[in-house]
């Protein structure tokens, strides 16, 4: 039986891991390669490096960061943040990424999803969707959550699948950094609408939140950042807890 994946995300700025609360108020959490080394032995199933560097100069260090992280792990590695073109994707893939995650660029130029899927295979293309509740529906946002893309998140996920995306990385902007639990309604809505894996993100704060998103939220994978960086919860403890609740995991 396919295991539910527990994914560690590193938000990286200028080569350093940071983590914000609702996309603001960053605090330092360490060196990417050092964290990666820890994840490799702790039983994390996959690592995501998300570059949140604002400047072009800072972006040039991303390939170095990817190379350093890839050198520490024999796990799938996805990289996102500021990937706008086929050559941006090639740079991080050549540096050791297995998958690229597209967000703003996918909405602005959806052909890029297909171009990359044709070149590297759909398994290498994640479409990241930042979603925010608008009444009883979910709106997709771009530019690090600053701009309403005027698209329904569920409908956009379906289109991304049809254009060649291999996975959806779905972040609840309302829950991001709050540690109040994943948005299981958002996750279930998207997961039921597509036939590709959905990675739930935003809100992980405790063991029960993972149980909830894997069962009621129908997530295929769950991503968290700060609870792993700051060692508030050990990965083994989390996985034992999930297994005890009948959720298949790699232990």
């Amino acid at each position, binding site marked *: 039986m396919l295991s539910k994946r527990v994914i560690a995300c590193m938000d990286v700025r200028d080569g350093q891991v940071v983590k914000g609360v609702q996309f603001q108020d960053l605090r330092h959490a360490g060196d990417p390669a050092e964290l990666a080394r820890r994840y490799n032995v702790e039983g994390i199933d996959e690592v995501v490096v998300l570059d949140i560097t604002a400047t072009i100069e800072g972006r040039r260090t991303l390939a170095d960061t990817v190379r350093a992280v890839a050198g520490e792990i024999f796990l799938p590695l996805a990289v996102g943040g500021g990937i706008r073109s086929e050559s941006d994707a090639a740079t991080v893939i050549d540096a*050791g990424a297995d998958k690229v995650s597209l967000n703003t660029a996918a909405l602005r130029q959806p052909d890029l999803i297909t171009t990359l899927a044709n070149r590297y*295979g759909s398994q290498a293309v994640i479409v990241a969707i930042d979603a925010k509740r608008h009444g009883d529906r979910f709106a997709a946002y771009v530019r690090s959550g600053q701009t309403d893309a005027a698209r329904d998140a569920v409908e956009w996920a379906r289109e991304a699948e049809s254009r060649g995306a291999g*996975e959806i990385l779905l972040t609840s902007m309302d829950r991001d950094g709050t540690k109040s639990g994943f948005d299981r309604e958002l996750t279930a809505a998207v997961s039921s609408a597509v*036939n590709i894996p959905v990675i739930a993100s935003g809100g992980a704060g405790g063991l029960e939140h993972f149980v909830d998103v894997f069962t009621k939220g129908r997530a*295929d994978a769950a991503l968290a950042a700060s609870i792993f960086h700051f060692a508030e919860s050990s990965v083994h403890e989390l996985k034992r807890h999930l297994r005890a609740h009948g959720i298949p995991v790699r232990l």
Partner: protein
Amino acid sequence: MIALVDYKAGNLTSVRKALSALEAAFFTPESASELETVDGVIVPGVGHFSSTANLDASWRGAIESRVRAGVPLLGICVGMQWLFEGSEESPDCPGLGVLPGRCARLLGNPAEGIKVPHVGWNALVPPAGAPSKLLNGIAEGSQVYFTHSYAGPVTNDCVAATTHGTETFSAAVERGRVYGVQFHPEKSSAAGLRILTNFLEVCR
């Protein structure tokens, strides 16, 4: 010396990194004639089955000749699917045909949340009475990382099967000195590195 065959389908960075970490001597041959003196051949692969068409008559001939000479061959992911007679993904593109059977698309079951592609960690279950050099030291139920939509059938060559929903396919095959893995050993943490080490052992 191991030949890592690059047929321009996706990138080989991860496989190279794993072989380097295991201190294997390997190179990427420029032409098929360079396979004549190697101790082992790895055909990796991510992406579409049709990309194996880049392995033209000269490559096929050189690889078949190595197999006949008893040189170990390892196919990874699409590289394993290529060992079979062909795949539903690209019916006009023949496989190497050193293993009987054809690869077919996984069906999944959307209503039950069984999705295709099959992405993630899943367990290796060896059929009864199937000793394997490739899986030496790998405990039954060990999990490895998959990412694929097509898979090879469970035949007499299967040394580990994996189940997604209700569908069971060959996760690892072994026929003489021909080996194949549907999963990515280079992405499968300690278990994956052990499997690559086992392959390097049979190349000695």
